């Protein structure tokens, strides 16, 4: 009787093994209708990356969230940061960078690029001084709306039907100063010529009840460097260790360049020509600059 059960158990074991070999190895369940979280890691990363780029293009945040549904938040954050960094390095338009940064921030990602492009700094406008068109009349000059009839014949009376005329001082139109001025130029000699820019602004801060002037870096500003046969652009703030207003360019020896801020039009902020350093005695070295620009208005 005992031997019979052994044979039955052996049969079950063999059958089970054969069944599992067949169902797991030879003819496994095939999945046709999978969804993005089940894709291989590189395809998932590409899905997230494409979703970010699609959002940069169409700005449809709700759809971007739906596309990223059920993917691991950490994976999303990591891929969004990489996509943003790649977009910054490729010089994508500012609007695309801002959307990428906004999406990354939406998923809790944080990096210098996210802070620069999704933060409030990006809405800082170029400091263009403006003038108030009118100066309000002093209270004493406001005409009385009611007539007065007094015994003094010199009393000024006004007609109640006429509207009061404000005391307007029209400013004399004068050309506005450029939004930035060169505050300092530091020259050095390097094996490869470089141009570094630091955009700054002077602001008033209150420290322990006292107002103080402080110089801050201006991140998220687009800089253009137009050469005789090439053009380059960069954004300030991507190397926070060098300062929030810092950006730099590689330049060619013996070339002239015009530097613009914001758009490469109008009068350049600075014009430079790279030339060899003389008298260094260390072989070929080239003039390189760090130009510190200060906003002339409030940032």
């Amino acid at each position, binding site marked *: 009787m005992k*031997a*019979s059960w052994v*044979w*039955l*158990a*052996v*049969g*079950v*074991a*063999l*059958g*089970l*093994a*054969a*069944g*599992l*070999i*067949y*169902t*797991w190895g030879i003819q*496994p*369940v095939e*999945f*046709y*209708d*999978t*969804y*993005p979280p*089940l*894709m*291989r*890691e590189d*395809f998932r990363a*590409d*899905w997230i*990356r*494409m*979703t970010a*780029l*699609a959002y*940069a*293009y*169409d700005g449809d945040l709700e759809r971007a969230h739906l*596309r990223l549904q059920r993917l691991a938040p950490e994976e999303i954050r990591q891929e969004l940061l990489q996509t943003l960094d790649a*977009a910054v390095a*490729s010089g*994508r338009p500012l609007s*695309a960078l801002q959307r990428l940064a906004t999406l990354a921030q939406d998923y809790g990602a944080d990096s210098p690029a996210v802070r620069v492009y999704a933060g409030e700094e990006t809405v800082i406008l170029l400091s263009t001084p403006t003038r108030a068109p009118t100066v309000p009349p002093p209270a004493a000059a406001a005409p009385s709306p009611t007539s007065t009839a007094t015994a003094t014949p010199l009393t000024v009376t006004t007609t109640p039907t006429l509207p009061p005329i404000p005391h307007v001082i029209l400013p004399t139109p004068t050309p506005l100063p450029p939004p930035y001025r060169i505050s300092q130029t530091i020259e050095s000699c390097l094996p490869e010529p470089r141009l570094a820019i630091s955009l700054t602004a002077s602001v008033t801060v209150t420290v322990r009840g006292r107002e103080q002037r402080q110089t801050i870096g201006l991140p998220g500003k687009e800089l253009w460097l137009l050469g005789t046969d090439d053009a380059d652009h960069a954004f300030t703030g991507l190397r926070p260790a060098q300062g929030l207003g810092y950006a730099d360019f590689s330049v060619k020896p013996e070339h002239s360049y015009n530097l613009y801020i914001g758009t490469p039009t109008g009068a350049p902020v600075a014009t430079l020509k790279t030339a060899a350093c003389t008298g260094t005695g260390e072989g070929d070295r080239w003039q390189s600059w760090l130009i510190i620009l200060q906003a002339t208005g409030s940032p």
Partner: protein
Amino acid sequence: MKRGRLLLVGLLVGLGLGFLFGWGLWPVQYHDTTPAQLRPDYRDEYLRLVALSYQVEPDLAQARARLAAMGDTAPFPQLVARIEAWITAGASPAALEPLIQLARDLGVDTPVMRAYLQEAQP
């Protein structure tokens, strides 16, 4: 004889259990699928994503590789089929234009797409 019958019964029972576990209770779990195995609505979304990201990063080789990952290679029948289906369904120009531009850059041009573009021109 009896032993043989017991062995056979055991085999059948074991085989049944094997099928039950292998296909039903613990089937092979797929974690590393490809875009080609996505559900049809996700495949459509994948096509849209390829076209939209191509607008931001106009890298034709990359777009081609992405389409190949979902099994769509020249002459890109899946892309063409979806574009024509969406044209027929009256999809918005904003949704169609990135796809049509990608298709044209890939060298795909069909009478339906041509007719749509001619109609879309002012």
